[in-house]
């Protein structure tokens, strides 16, 4: 246990040293504050409108950005140490491969979690302090949910990045594979689902179709944040089929599974990896 913590500590201090933590936090903060005040500029208004539309726009942007950041942070977690020659050395120290994997994952998780809390949290604070006519408890509830789900989404893509990193023997290949994963979940999946929806034309049972959304962590993430807000009034595209899902806690559980399952697979891949 203490070995896991030592590895995690190193990862966090690396994150501080190379300014990743700062950069991600700033990105989140600027993004959230920008959307809160200028999100509705297209419709001619400038200034804070309301919490619902802020969270809605933020969610759709973050569902692109957070997976990308998480993959970028961790795609070389294992393959990078291998290429750098330090993996060989670490594995002759009194720690198991599981300690190493979990330790590094915890370190990266802490970085993403801190960035989400500090970055999005500062936006929430700004809204509470500067915006007029907002109900504080509403803002806190919406942002609390948003920050927690954003963190979980980040962790699930961290876990996917670890899986890639444990499978591949070259850093370049890992980067390519990580990008493909991003492309698949963020862009291709919904299009494929829409195509399926129109081509089967109700041929598929309407009960099973919404469950397909659970196959994509970014869709679960959007459902969590949008469903809670406005009863799916603003939900469009492939996501609309999720309106029928009889789930609330199930969505959270789904996201948690998307953290645990790839991490478990990464562990299996790492154990089989030749040094």
């Amino acid at each position, binding site marked *: 246990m203490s070995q896991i913590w030592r590895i995690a500590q190193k990862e966090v201090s690396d994150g501080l040293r190379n300014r990743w933590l700062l950069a991600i936090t700033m990105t989140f903060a600027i993004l959230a504050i920008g959307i809160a005040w200028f999100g509705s500029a297209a419709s001619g208004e400038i200034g804070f409108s309301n919490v619902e539309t802020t969270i809605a726009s933020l969610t759709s942007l973050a569902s692109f950005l957070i997976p990308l950041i998480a993959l970028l942070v961790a795609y070389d977690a294992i393959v990078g140490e291998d290429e*750098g020659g330090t993996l060989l050395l670490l594995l*002759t*120290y*009194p*720690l198991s491969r599981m300690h190493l994997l979990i330790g590094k994952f915890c370190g990266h998780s802490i970085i993403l979690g801190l960035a989400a809390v500090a970055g999005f949290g500062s936006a929430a604070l700004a809204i509470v302090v500067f915006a007029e006519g907002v109900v504080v408890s509403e803002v806190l509830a919406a942002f609390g949910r948003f920050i927690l789900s954003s963190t979980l989404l980040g962790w699930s893509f961290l876990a996917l990045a670890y899986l890639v990193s444990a499978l591949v023997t070259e850093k370049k290949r890992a980067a390519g594979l990580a990008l493909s994963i991003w492309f698949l979940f963020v862009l291709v999946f919904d299009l494929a689902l829409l195509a399926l929806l129109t081509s089967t034309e109700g041929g598929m049972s309407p009960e099973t179709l919404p469950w397909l959304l659970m196959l994509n962590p970014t869709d679960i993430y959007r459902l969590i944040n949008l469903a809670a807000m406005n009863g799916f009034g603003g939900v469009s595209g492939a996501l609309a089929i999720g309106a029928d899902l009889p789930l609330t806690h199930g969505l959270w559980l789904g996201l948690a599974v998307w953290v645990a399952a790839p991490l478990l697979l990464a562990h299996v891949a790492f154990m089989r990896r030749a040094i």
Partner: protein
Amino acid sequence: MIHLEGVSQYYGRHQVLHDLNLTLGEGEVLGLFGHNGAGKTTTIKLILGLLRPDRGNVLTLGRSPNQVDMRRQIGYLPENVMFYPQLSGLETLRYFARLKQAPLTQVKSLLEQVGLSEAANQKVKTYSKGMRQRLGLAQALLGEPRLLLLDEPTVGLDPIATADLYELVDGLRRQGAGIILCSHVLPGVEPHIDRAAILGHGRLRAEGSLGELRRQAQAPIRLRLSGVKHRDQCLERWKDQIPDMRPVNAHSLEIATDAQHKLELLKVLLTSIQVEDVDIHQPGLEDLYRYFIADDPAQIKETQQ
């Protein structure tokens, strides 16, 4: 401390170790030698549990080498040791000390011991090859290991640092540590090892103390007589009894003999020939290495091609 019994290892379908038997006792230094690709590093990785043997048995410190907590007692210097380039030498060693649960007070003294005190706060990416090697050595000594595995430790070290390293090896041996030393630099290691194992194409070609190896090889001992009076007459007179006698320069003779006949021959010669000096040249590690490696049929084929 180490027992390898009938170990065979494959990379894919390529067999790199054939039925290897090797042991190391406490307070013993084993030199592991062999050509490039002979299987030295593979053997060390098996001892460390980084590889699992496809056949045979490996025991390290009396236990299966994949047991994690046992590694606290093992120090390992890999060939081409690498570190985190963005950390300083001090930070690197502190991190590894924590992982090995070694006292942090050891870090400063180790840096001093390997001569890196001044560069301790410099980032590792600015280190020279030899400085990295020194840091690697310091890392291997964390936690006062009972078993030390050094894979080409002298690569990149300057002559003084190399001498320091050998002195360190001697000191640790006196304290009862078992040490495996892999090297291509044969001159110089001889006085610091108890036994040598010579690998050729994944097979143990020879193993034993230097005396044992000399006997096995029946490598000739060369006697050089210098300042010989009436050299040509001597040559003429002894040439039938001692066929391995040859002139070297104007006043010197060289005779090849073996360990058994060495003394007898010397007695006879010194009573009947007038000489100024006698040099006895024992076959060194390098001669033995050449002998056992050349014995390898595959190697001979390679050199013929």
